[in-house]
Each structure stands twice: as C-alpha cells, then as structure tokens.
C-alpha cells in the first residue's frame, strides 16, 4: 500500500466534506461541461487524491530512476547530466539544399541530425519514375543514388554526429548508403551511430508508406536488426513508432498499445527467424512517440510506455540485460494538432507539447515549425522551433530535477490507466495471433479510423476546441511566409540521375542486382549485398524493384 491507513481515513473524511461543498456549488451553478475528457476522449475526474492510488506499489509501480520498471526514467541523473538531443527532422529539395539546412541547424546548436526524404525516395522510386512526377524534393530530400547521399553528408563528421533517417520500405537501401558513405569517409561501421525508422508495421496500420506485403517487410527488418547487432553496434536499427499512429487519429492508449505490440512482433520475429537472444539485439530497439496537445495524458503515456516495455522484455522475452529492458524514445510534437488558421498560434502548441515530452523523459525531440501545416518549414520557422527546445531546457528549470511530476495523484493514476488500457489492447492482439494477423483483419486500422472520426465530429459539434478553427475564428486570414520548392529541383535531379546512370559500370550494376535477387530468394541477409549494390551506384528504385519482384506488392485495402 502506498499510504498509511490513518492518512487514508483522514483523506476519506476530508473528501466527504469537499464533496458536500461541491454539491452545494453545483446546485447553484453547473460546471463548464457535463463531461471532461482528454483529447483522446479519456475520462478525467474532478479531482484525484491519495485514495485513487492507494493500491499502487511504490517499488513496483513508481520506484526510482534507472531502476526497474523505469517509470521515472532510464538515467540515474536524468537531464542533469545531459539534455535530450535536439533533433530537428529536416530535408527538402536536393541533397545539397538539405546539407545546407543541416549545417545551419548544427551552427544553431542542434545536437543530432534527422533526415526527411521526399515521397519517391520513401516509396522506393527514382526521380525519373512516371509515378514520381511532381513529387521530387517536395516533402523531403530526393535521393536516387550514393552520389546524392555523399552530397547529403558532405562535411558532416559521421563518427561524431548521430543521424536519424525516416525511411521505411527502402530502409535497407538508405542505411546501406550511410554505411558506404562512412566507409568512403574513412569511418568504420562500429563508429557510426544513428537510427533508421524501419518500422513497417505502423505503415500498414497508419502511415501507409508501403511496398511489399507485411511478412517479407518484417523479414527485411529482421535482416537489419541482425546486421546491426553483428556489424554496426551503435546503430538503432528500428524506431518503433507511435507517432504516425497518433497522427492518423488514434487515441493515446491506442498509440501506446499498437506501438508496443509492434515492438513485440519484431522481437519475436528476430528470435524465431535469426535465432538471436533478445539480449543480442534488444538494446538497439528504439521508440518514437507523439507529443500531442493534452499535456498530462502525454506525460503519463510516456511513463507508462517505459514501464510496460520493461515488463515485456524481462518477463515475456526473458531478457537478462538491463539495457534490453530500457525503452529509449524520440518524440515529435503533434503535426495534427497544428492549425492552418492563425499559424503563429502553433508556436504555443508546440512549446506545450515539447514540455510534455521533456516531463515524460524523452531521449530526443523534434519540435514542429509553425508553418509545417502548409509546407516544409522556412529557416526562420525552424529556428523558432529549435529555440523552443533550448528555452525549455536552459531557461525554465524543468530539467533541474528528475521526473518532477511523480507522486502526483493525478499523474500516477493516469499513468496506471494508460498502462491498463494498453495491456487490454495488447492482450486482444495476442488473442488474434499477433500484430500481423490483426493488421490482416484490419483491426488496428479500424480502431484508429473510429477514433479519428469521433474526434472530427467532436470538433464539428464544438465539444472539443481547436482555437482558430472552431472557436476564436478570425475573418482575416493570417498568413506566414511559405517555403516553395522550385520546379527546377526536379529538372536538376533528373539530370543528375541521368548522368550517374550514364557514367556507372552497367555490368557491376547488373551483377549487384543479381546477387541481391539471389539473396532475397534464398532468404539470406540482404544487407551485405545491398551495401555492394549502392557502392556500384544501383539506384534506390532498382534495388527496390528487386524486392518488389521477389516479395510482391501490397495493395491498400482502403478501409474506412
């Protein structure tokens, strides 16, 4: 028990008194609304008191930082030793344009890099594919071959700075390029650090950037996890992502549950397919959460996430190493909480969300720019977003002590509710036969669709408020400067690609692709041949075409 009996008795009598006072007030005047709930529609009570958390176990549920189950964080000194990594997701236009933005960010105090690729790259297509027309460089940087990639990392010390790459179906290819680029710069594979997102399950569930069917997609992920464990030990080979699940409209509990269940699916696949022990690879599994606008719900979600993962890794998968129990995660503030209307208000939203991520104990953070509802951010907007993190870190004092909200009746109770809600979902998915089976049945997709639709109707009815959208609307449009990606970017990239194709050695390209095809068919790890292929200047699409040919294509079932 968390509190002494005497205290709870006292509490109970004080509560009765307060309830009488509440009744009296309510008989005269009601509250602002009938029901109070989070942005996820999770019920919130009028007050939380010791009685709510009386059956929590201090050691098992809360404990100390760096101690199982890590509710209060992984690190013994929290952010007192070192702040979270300021990691702004960026990429636009050509590799050269993005390289410039990266240097600008590093000069401004950013401490890690994070790459946004354009849609053709994300989908495993080259700029010269008919399907890619009009998309080049628009949502991120266009990469077709290793030559582009070398420009991207020009003057970036790959042995010092860590780089995250948001890349999924072609993750093997872009990671192979990073490895090849490091080698060219004389940095050994065991010296490079970073993350590839490489989480395909959430693509089928939410983000919808897919190529091959789920089963072979997971196989490729297990290849990268195995290769990383053996050859690139400082690399996080998967970033198991709730971010996109939330952006697609899920609740906080769904984000938590589906993300963790995805992680469990990967652990099981690597153990089964590769015969590795969880301790050989689990320390390099990383996570990625959304920081949405409902402040306390997000903090509690993150505290619950660490707790559940520690239990899962220790008890379900029998991992022995503490590092295998750690949930390390990146956070991004919620793009879907921003509004196109009155865009300067987005600065305040992002600041609040960033604060919740910090109080939730994130390892690294991206803060959205005020103009990102419209387009890729301008330099100025990005700088404000980065400064938001720096102000939280270095001015507000919130990082002076570890997990400052622990022990709050509300925070501990909501943490428990997040945890229990997630377990319920995890058990349902277990009963279905795991996440692949659940995706096949459309289960997580439809749960998210229901939640997204409910939220939209709550916005339309005014039950939930978005300032500037359904309340405090202004007639005059408030506009901010927008970044335009010049159409010349596409022309330039097409020319570059054509030149690379002309000058490369066609025979070694063919041999590389044949080797890759053979490795795919035999079920071998594709990473070593993939690295050879990118060195021989095979394009992203040429390599992905081999995957598509061997593994087949996934068709969006179009559920709604």
């Amino acid at each position: 028990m968390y509190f002494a009996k005497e205290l709870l008795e006292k509490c109970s009598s004080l509560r009765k008194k307060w309830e009488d006072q509440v009744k009296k007030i309510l008989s005269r005047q009601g509250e602002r609304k009938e029901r109070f709930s989070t942005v996820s529609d999770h019920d919130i009570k009028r007050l939380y008191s010791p009685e709510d958390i009386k059956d929590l176990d201090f050691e098992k549920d809360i404990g100390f930082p760096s101690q199982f189950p890590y509710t209060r964080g992984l690190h013994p000194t929290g952010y007192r030793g070192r702040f979270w990594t300021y990691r702004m997701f960026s990429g636009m236009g050509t590799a050269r344009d993005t390289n410039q933005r990266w240097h600008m960010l590093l000069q401004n105090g950013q401490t890690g890099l994070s790459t946004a690729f354009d849609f053709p790259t994300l989908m495993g297509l080259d700029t010269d594919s008919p399907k890619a027309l009009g998309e080049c460089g628009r949502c991120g940087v266009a990469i077709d071959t290793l030559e582009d990639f070398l420009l991207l990392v020009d003057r970036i010390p790959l042995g010092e700075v860590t780089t995250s790459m948001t890349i999924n179906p072609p993750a093997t290819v872009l990671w192979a390029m990073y490895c090849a680029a490091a080698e060219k710069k004389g940095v050994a594979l065991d010296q490079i650090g970073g993350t590839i997102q490489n989480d395909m399950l959430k693509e089928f569930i939410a983000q919808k950037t897919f190529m091959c069917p789920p089963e072979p997609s997971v196989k490729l992920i297990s290849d990268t996890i195995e290769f990383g464990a053996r050859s690139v030990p400082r690399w996080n080979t998967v970033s198991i992502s709730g971010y996109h699940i939330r952006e697609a409209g899920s609740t906080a509990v769904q984000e938590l549950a589906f993300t963790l269940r995805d992680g469990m699916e990967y652990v099981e696949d690597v153990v089964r397919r590769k015969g590795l022990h969880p301790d050989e690879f689990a320390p390099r599994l990383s996570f990625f959460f959304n920081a949405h606008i409902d402040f306390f719900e997000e903090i509690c979600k993150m505290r619950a996430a660490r707790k559940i993962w520690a239990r899962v890794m220790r008890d379900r998968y029998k991992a022995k190493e503490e590092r295998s129990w750690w949930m390390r995660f990146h956070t991004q503030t919620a793009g879907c909480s921003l509004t196109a209307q009155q865009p300067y208000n987005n600065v305040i939203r992002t600041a609040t969300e960033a604060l919740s991520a910090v109080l939730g104990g994130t390892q690294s953070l991206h803060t959205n720019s005020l103009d990102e509802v419209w387009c890729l951010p301008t330099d100025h907007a990005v700088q404000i977003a980065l400064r938001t993190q720096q102000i939280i870190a270095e001015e507000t004092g919130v990082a002076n002590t570890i997990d400052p909200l622990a022990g709050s009746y509300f925070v501990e109770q909501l943490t428990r509710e997040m945890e229990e809600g997630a377990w319920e979902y995890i058990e349902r998915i277990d009963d279905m036969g795991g996440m692949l089976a659940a995706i096949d049945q459309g289960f997580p997709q439809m749960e998210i669709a229901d939640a997204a639709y409910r939220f939209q109707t709550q916005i339309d009815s005014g039950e939930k408020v978005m300032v500037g959208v359904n309340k405090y609307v202004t007639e005059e449009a408030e506009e901010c400067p927008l970044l335009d990606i010049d159409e010349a970017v596409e022309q330039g990239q097409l020319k570059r690609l054509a030149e690379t194709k002309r000058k490369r050695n066609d025979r070694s390209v063919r041999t590389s692709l044949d080797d890759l095809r053979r490795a795919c068919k035999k079920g071998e790890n594709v990473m070593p041949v993939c690295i050879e292929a990118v060195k021989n200047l095979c394009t992203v699409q040429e390599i992905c075409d081999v995957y598509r040919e061997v593994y087949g294509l996934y068709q969006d079932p179009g559920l709604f």
Partner: protein
Amino acid sequence: MSKRPIRILVAKPGLDGHDRGARILARCFRDAGHEVVYTGCHQTPEQIAAAALQEDVDCVGLSCLSGAHKHLFPKVVQLLREQDAGDIVVIGGGIIPKQDFPVLYDAGIKEIFTPGTPLPEIVDWINEHVVPGREL
C-alpha cells in the same frame, strides 16, 4: 431518371499516405446517405479516372497532402474529359496553399476544401452541386 443516391469516389492520388482526411470524408459521405467508394492510397491519375468510370460516380474527391496537387489534380480532370466524363464533379482537398487555387480552378477542379473545414460544410456543398445519375 429514377432517384438514386449520389455516388462518390474518394481518391488518394500520388505517393503520400496521409489518408486520415480522406477516410474521415469517406465515412462522413456514407453517413450522409451517399454511396462511397474509396480507392486507398498511392493511386495514379489513370487509376482514379478508370475507377470513376467503372463505378459510375457523380463526384470524385481528391485528397493530397504531399504538395504534388498541381500536377495530380488537373491530370485527373483531363483524363475524365478525354473519356467523355467531364461532367463528373471533381473536388479536391488537403494541404493546398491559397496561391494554387486559381490554377486548380482553371483546370476544372470545382471546389477545394482545406484543413479545418467542418464536415457538414462539405456535405452541404455536395448536396447542392452534385446531381445523382450523370447524364450520359
């Protein structure tokens, strides 16, 4: 002609997978009593035009959040016109800056709905501007 419900194709042209809006609209149109077909993500303009004809729809709602709308939306209208289906009402939505509206209107997109538009507003627009059962 007998009265049948309005038939709408909700379509996601291009490579982006941001389908939250498209799927919410598909469900909203269904709740409003229309017949709805949703293409799923990653459709080419050719696939969308073919689906519109095959499903005999009265309206096509295009959703794009990648910035490629200036290329993709006009292409769908052009393909429909080429196949004598220029009377299908094509509307668009997504992340579309104001300055791109004139180009899209000129290309034959009848209306554009951007983030924050209440669902009932879109339903009302459809009821006012789309007549079920195209004249063939």
